[in-house]
């Protein structure tokens, strides 16, 4: 094989792109990160994908196409994360390949990373072959180091994000925390490749955010977010739902993050599944792929943790999530927790979306009030 200069491009997902970027930079490659989802990428993706394909596929296709189009003189390795399972997520890369080739692009190859799937005697060698194809030949410790650094960056970014959404409804000057956060993301992105340095930056930035004037309180309405991973984890796909809710004065929590998603899927898969089956008993006790089962489980767990409402975010026509949606109506009745299902597609308008969120938040606030009044009347009677 001729030694071509290879450039990597990875799916952009939330703020974690910084981690993927550093992973490939440590291995000594160029990386081009696609721009955040915008009307251009969506238009590009939608016009070339099958009509009823999932929305994440269309977004990613659009992102990759834009990258390939803008850099015709580079040779790309397009990284695609996949799983083998009953959801369409597992068939992304062959379609990327076919559609991009059909469009006339030749300066790319697709590298898909997928888990080990049966039969094992074929699956394990295939997994390692793909890994080598992904990283190229490197000393194993370089790859391990890159993994560790990328992992730490993901962790740091998630901690910062958590802090941000905790502080926004409590800050004294609206928007001040976000400014600090944006600077912090940049700092983490360009942090030197040492665990110690990342830790230090993280602690400094967390302290800076903490010192931003705010009022600590715990009587805010609480909303949990469940749904499909890619829509949920990428802020540009879900129209910044978390930030919007936070600015409406809601304590918001997202059930899926890159760290717990990977842990649950890869390392703690067995115990995670057993836990899920236990919680979901009577609702959905069968593996349907995607994040459908997680959505149901997390809704129940949120109720148990005292949350006031749950929002399910899903791409339009997502196979597991539509199944989950129908079951969630029953869960919502049985557990007495309001659930709002939002389907995202290329036509989601921002104004209508905000109105729906506002209505949901208002409803939750009045429900809280009613509950408190009830409590008071009970104590008076006693």
């Amino acid at each position, binding site marked *: 094989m001729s030694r071509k200069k290879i450039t990597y491009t990875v799916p952009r997902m939330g703020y974690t792109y910084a981690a993927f970027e550093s992973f490939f930079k440590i291995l000594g490659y160029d990386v081009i990160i696609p721009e955040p989802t915008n009307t251009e990428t969506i238009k590009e993706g939608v016009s070339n994908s099958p009509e*009823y394909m999932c929305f994440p596929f269309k977004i990613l296709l659009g992102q990759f196409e834009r990258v390939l189009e803008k850099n015709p003189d580079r040779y790309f390795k397009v990284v695609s994360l996949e799983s083998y399972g009953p959801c*369409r997520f597992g068939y992304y890369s*062959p379609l990327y390949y*076919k559609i991009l080739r059909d469009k006339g692009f030749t300066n790319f190859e697709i590298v898909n990373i997928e888990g080990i799937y049966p*039969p094992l005697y074929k699956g394990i060698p295939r997994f390692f072959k793909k890994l080598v194809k992904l990283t190229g030949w490197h000393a194993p410790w370089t790859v391990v180091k890159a993994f560790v650094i990328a992992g730490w960056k993901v962790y740091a970014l998630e901690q910062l994000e958590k802090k941000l959404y905790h502080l926004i409804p409590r800050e004294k000057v609206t928007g001040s925390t976000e400014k600090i956060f944006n600077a912090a993301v940049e700092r983490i992105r360009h942090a030197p490749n040492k665990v110690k340095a990342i830790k230090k930056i993280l602690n400094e930035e967390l302290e800076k955010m903490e010192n931003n004037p705010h009022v600590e309180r715990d009587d805010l309405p609480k909303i949990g977010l469940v749904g499909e991973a890619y829509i949920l984890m990428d802020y540009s796909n879900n129209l910044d739902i978390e930030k919007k809710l936070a600015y409406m004065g809601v304590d918001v929590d997202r059930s899926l993050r890159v760290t717990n998603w990977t842990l649950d899927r890869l390392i703690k898969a067995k115990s995670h599944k057993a836990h899920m089956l236990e919680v979901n008993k009577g609702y959905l006790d*069968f593996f*349907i792929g995607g994040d459908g089962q997680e959505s149901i489980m997390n809704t129940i767990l949120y109720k148990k943790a005292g949350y006031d409402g749950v929002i399910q975010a899903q791409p339009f026509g997502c196979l597991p999530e539509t199944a989950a949606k129908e079951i969630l109506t029953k869960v919502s009745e049985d557990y007495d927790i309001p659930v709002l299902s939002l389907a995202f597609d290329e036509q989601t308008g921002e104004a209508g979306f905000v109105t729906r969120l506002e209505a949901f938040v208002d409803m939750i606030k009045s429900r809280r009030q009613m509950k408190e009044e009830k409590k008071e009347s009970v104590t008076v009677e006693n």
Partner: protein
Amino acid sequence: MKIGIPRALYFYVYYPMWYGFFSSLGHEMKLSIPTNKEIINLGVSHSVDDICISVKVFHGHVKYLLNKDVDFVFVPRIASEEKYKYTCPKLAALPDLMKSAFVSDAGRILTATFYTRQGDKPIIEAFEEIGRQLGDPEEKVKRATKEGIKYQNLATKALRSGHTFLDIVKNIKNLEELIKRPVEKKRYTVALAGFPYDVYDTFTNGDVISKLEDSGVGIVTTDMLDPKVYKHYSKYMIKDLFWYQANAAAKGGMYYIDSPDIDGIISISSFNCGISSIYQKLLDLYSKEIGKPVMHIIVDEQTGDAGLATRIEAFIDLIRVKRGDGLVSQENNLHGTENGVHVRSV
């Protein structure tokens, strides 16, 4: 006991097995009526709005049966039809969907998880589970299972010899006779690619099969093919799809695109069916390379009959022109209705 069997989804694949099983146990079977407007309305009002039309129709059939005087409605969970291949998530969650859609009747839904075509053992286990729920003696259940598998094998044979599944449902009592009956060969043959429940549900797909047959075009479907004949298309697809039926539709469609005695391919899918979007794209790209006409029909609860008839006529004209027969002559181009079915001779 009286057992209701919804005439939707996997009915169009495994009805012979269920017929053999339940009739051998001596239970009375009640099939829901073929899909009509009433059933679709029932289904639409009992399901969430963005689920695919096939599952909506299934809701309608189940509700129809629950309203009738049956003890159980049979909703099997077909989890996997081939090793390492699964069914669509919505179908894998079907019994759970039914239980949450019809909460008050949840106890009347008879279900078991089937792993078909992975040998007989998982089928036997699933039927044992059903036997337990119905309270039938084990010995009898075993015999009935054998009977069910026998019927299914006969039906597969009938399919391979070119009979549609609708013929099989009609002649369920004398399948052996049906296998021997030859299939008439027509001048034009169109292949229907798609999931059996989309291809055979004559109301939701606007009766494509009779429209074609009445116009003098023979049809073949992808479920008539033995999976062995299209195995080699995995290479073109890079990676197998995870759903047995989608694989059958995609690879079967490609097989028909390549076979010289098929004039065109019509793929039928239901609105918002996520899986068909993949195989339709694959068929599109493949037909572009080979150069055979492929038409996609996507049906929903609002499909109008006239528009579909026009599209099929245009497709037939296209096939005729490709064969060098020219367009349909003016005197043959008369439109009439026989039992409400649009007829035009070729």
